[in-house]
């Protein structure tokens, strides 16, 4: 492995043009990842035709690098302005933005930079050491029943995040689940709650909903404070987290690497589920769950470690089996095909050089997140000094562009503003915005896998629970729910007594 890695490194850095492609991918990924709406996918789609003129290794490597750095890029705007660059950065905003409001933006961004790099590098190392066996294990053992069980397990802690009471937390999650049912059902393709609008047949897209619930509602909240003379600009702090602070979260980092890697390896799942599950596990194992959603450093650490840990993992089913884990890895298939190659088992035998250049590039791309991230962060933090009256319209404009550009539908802009208005009133009443978004995203993934899983086990719960991973995850989820309910009733019992 070491020899192959060194050979890949030599190829990557042995040619100035290849180095140029690598640097372009690193910076382009970060930039496009950071701007809401124009995600790394936008950049990849623009670059796709040009990869025909690159060598196969350069083309695939460019996309792999964009994937790594683009996943990190969205964290910055999520933390500073409550605008997640992509759905996989949404959980980062849950605690990252409250930290900014508390004057701890430097700590949040510093943790995001470091943990993205750690998650990505760890993932790349695992990917290099065991791509083929891991891919085979995943497809043999994880199917829709297990993915549903995983989502159920993740949702079980969702009520703890951000709500004033556990009941409001649950209502928020249920609202998210309800929104997730809008559009065609995932099995029969029957329209639900679309009220005759064809555009709603595809359901509520993640990006406009997230932008609305986070960015727009936040602008409304701050505008209300400004009007009432209670607005306080976030304090600018460029202090990074200390080694001691980060070391205190070492278990969270390791846990998030494992969770993120596991989610990333599943075909068609990818970094979004990884980030939400990583965040959910941080909440589950925390001593003080109520701190999450209010500016808990571990929330940022877990989410950013997990989503970058998914990047290397998502390459495993792609390279070993030809199964892309998401939209960007699906585009990588097109890059392979442009050069008469097919990702899959044969590529390891036919083009081992290409594979090791890609592996090496992903390793170094994740490392470069650390160096470039640390260099750029202190400059970026000064964006917080922009006065609210200029910042608010800028955020609304960026969010509107971001909502529109992903599908080119005016409906998405309307959805974004509607979500912003709903989010504004729900926040005033103590409901949880993270809970709604968790419900929406995990609901869509969960419903599809529930329906497929039930068909696979012929609607027989006995067969369902004969699958050990399903049993363990569902029981663990039920126990979490029971513990949450006990905690909710416990204070009432004491008061009654």
């Amino acid at each position, binding site marked *: 492995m070491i020899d192959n890695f060194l050979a890949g490194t030599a190829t990557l850095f042995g040619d100035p043009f290849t180095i140029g492609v690598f640097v372009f991918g690193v910076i382009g990924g970060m930039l496009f990842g950071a701007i809401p709406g124009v995600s790394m*996918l936008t950049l990849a*789609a623009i670059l*796709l*035709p040009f990869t*025909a003129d690159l060598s196969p290794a350069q083309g695939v490597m460019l996309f792999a690098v964009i994937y790594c750095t683009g996943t990190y890029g969205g964290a910055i705007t999520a933390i500073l302005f409550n605008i997640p660059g992509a759905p996989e950065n949404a959980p980062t905003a849950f605690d990252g933005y409250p930290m900014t409001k508390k004057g701890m933006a430097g700590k949040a961004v510093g943790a995001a930079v470091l943990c993205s790099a750690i998650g990505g590098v760890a993932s790349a190392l695992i990917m290099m050491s065991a791509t083929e066996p891991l891919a085979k294990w*995943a*497809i*043999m*053992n*994880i*199917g*829709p029943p297990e993915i549903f069980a995983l989502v159920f397990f993740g949702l079980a802690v969702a009520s703890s995040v951000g709500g004033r009471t556990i009941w409001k937390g649950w209502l928020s999650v249920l609202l998210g689940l309800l929104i997730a049912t809008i*559009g*065609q059902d*995932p*099995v*029969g*393709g*029957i*329209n639900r709650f679309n009220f005759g609008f*064809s*555009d709603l*047949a*595809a*359901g509520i*897209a993640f990006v406009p909903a997230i932008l609305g619930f986070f960015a727009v509602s936040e602008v409304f909240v701050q505008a209300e404070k400004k009007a009432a003379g209670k607005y306080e600009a976030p304090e600018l702090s460029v202090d990074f987290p200390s080694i001691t602070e980060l070391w205190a979260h070492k278990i969270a980092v390791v846990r998030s690497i494992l969770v993120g890697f596991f989610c990333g390896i599943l*075909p*068609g799942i990818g970094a979004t589920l990884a980030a939400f599950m990583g965040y959910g596990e941080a909440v589950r194992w925390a001593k003080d769950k109520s701190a999450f959603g209010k500016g808990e450093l571990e929330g940022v650490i877990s989410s950013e470690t997990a989503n970058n840990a998914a990047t290397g993992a998502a390459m495993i*089913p792609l390279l070993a*089996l*030809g*199964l*892309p*884990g998401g*939209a960007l*890895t*699906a*585009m990588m*298939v*097109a890059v392979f*095909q442009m050069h*008469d190659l*097919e*990702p*899959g*088992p*044969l590529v390891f035998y036919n083009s081992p050089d290409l594979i090791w250049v890609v592996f090496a590039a992903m390793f170094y791309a994740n490392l470069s997140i650390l160096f470039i991230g640390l260099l750029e962060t202190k400059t970026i933090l000064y964006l917080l000094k922009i006065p609210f009256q200029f910042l608010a319209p800028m955020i609304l404009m960026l969010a509107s562009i971001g909502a529109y550009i992903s*599908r*080119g*539908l005016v409906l998405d802009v309307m959805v974004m503003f509607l979500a912003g208005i709903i989010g504004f009133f729900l926040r005033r009443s103590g409901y949880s915005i993270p809970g709604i978004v968790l419900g929406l995203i995990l609901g869509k993934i969960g419903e*599809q896998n529930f*329906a*497929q899983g039930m*068909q*696979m086990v*012929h609607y027989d719960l006995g067969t369902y629970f004969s699958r050990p991973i399903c049993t363990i995850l569902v029981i663990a989820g039920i126990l979490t729910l029971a513990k949450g309910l006990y905690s909710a009733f416990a204070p009432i019992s004491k008061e009654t007594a």
Partner: protein
Amino acid sequence: MKKLQKKSMSGIVTALAVAGFSSIAYAEECRISNSSMVKPGGFPDRALTMVVPYGPGGGSGQVAAAMAEAVTGLTSVGINRDHKPGGSGTVGMTAYMTSQADGYTVLEHIDDASSAHALDSSKPNPAVDLIPLVISQVTFSQVYIRTNETRYTDWPSFVAWVQAQDGKATIANVSKEGSMERVIMKFITESSNMTIQQISFDKGAPRYGALLGGQVDALFEQPGDVRKFLDSDNFKPILTVFGERPAAFADVPTHVEMGMDFEPLLRFRGFYVHKDAPADRVDWLKWAFQRAYCEDSYQTYNDSKFMNVIDSYRDTDGAIELINAAIDQYRGVYKEMGLDVK
């Protein structure tokens, strides 16, 4: 079923006429197209927009990219692809129908547009409300199993095994209400006297992963989409749903040979423009897209996707014929299935 089969017999004739016997004529027509054409009134003097109602990574996204590249290579006119996925293509179609009919915006779509119109006539009819520029991919479906499968190795043993499972065997496909996949699976299961649980996966990767990992027992798919698994010897076809054995799959029996008497519905992908677009612009677009089909870059792409196994080319008239035949077929089948045909 008998009534349906009788209807299907005439349909088979139509399908063969359209898909098989006319192929040489269409190929000739393609080859004799003029290699250049004067731009009418300077049209187009800027890049075209191509609305693609599916994501960039799937079959439609890829064919749109390949055709856009070929048209640009031929004419030096850029094409911006605008992906509007969702709702089995309805979101993109709706958006396209509200765009300006000036010829600058074209549409990529698949046979789903025809089946959607067959089920609900208020939906756009691709042969009437749009002008087909070219249909550039026509393909058939197959049933696949894992190559290392030991429980069954061919179609007869697969049917016997499924029958013994008492409805508990599974097949992965895209079995949305009224889809080509669901309709063909209905024919297959009825003709073979078997019950099989269809598991619908809307994305390719989980669908193929389900068969690779043994989560399902078989897969219903088109050969171009699983070529890499065929080349790597992970999957093998055990049934071809087409009137005759394509040369590339000469050792795989057809559904007709296996005693199934129904018309094979085909998957087709093509490019369209508004019916109200100026006629001279439409003529130029027809030339550009039909000629681009013959470009080396596009043919290489089609070859890589098994899209030249049967004739994939339909010019405007051929496309209208294919679409009308498909709509008639689907409408008859939907009524037979008891669906609410509007």
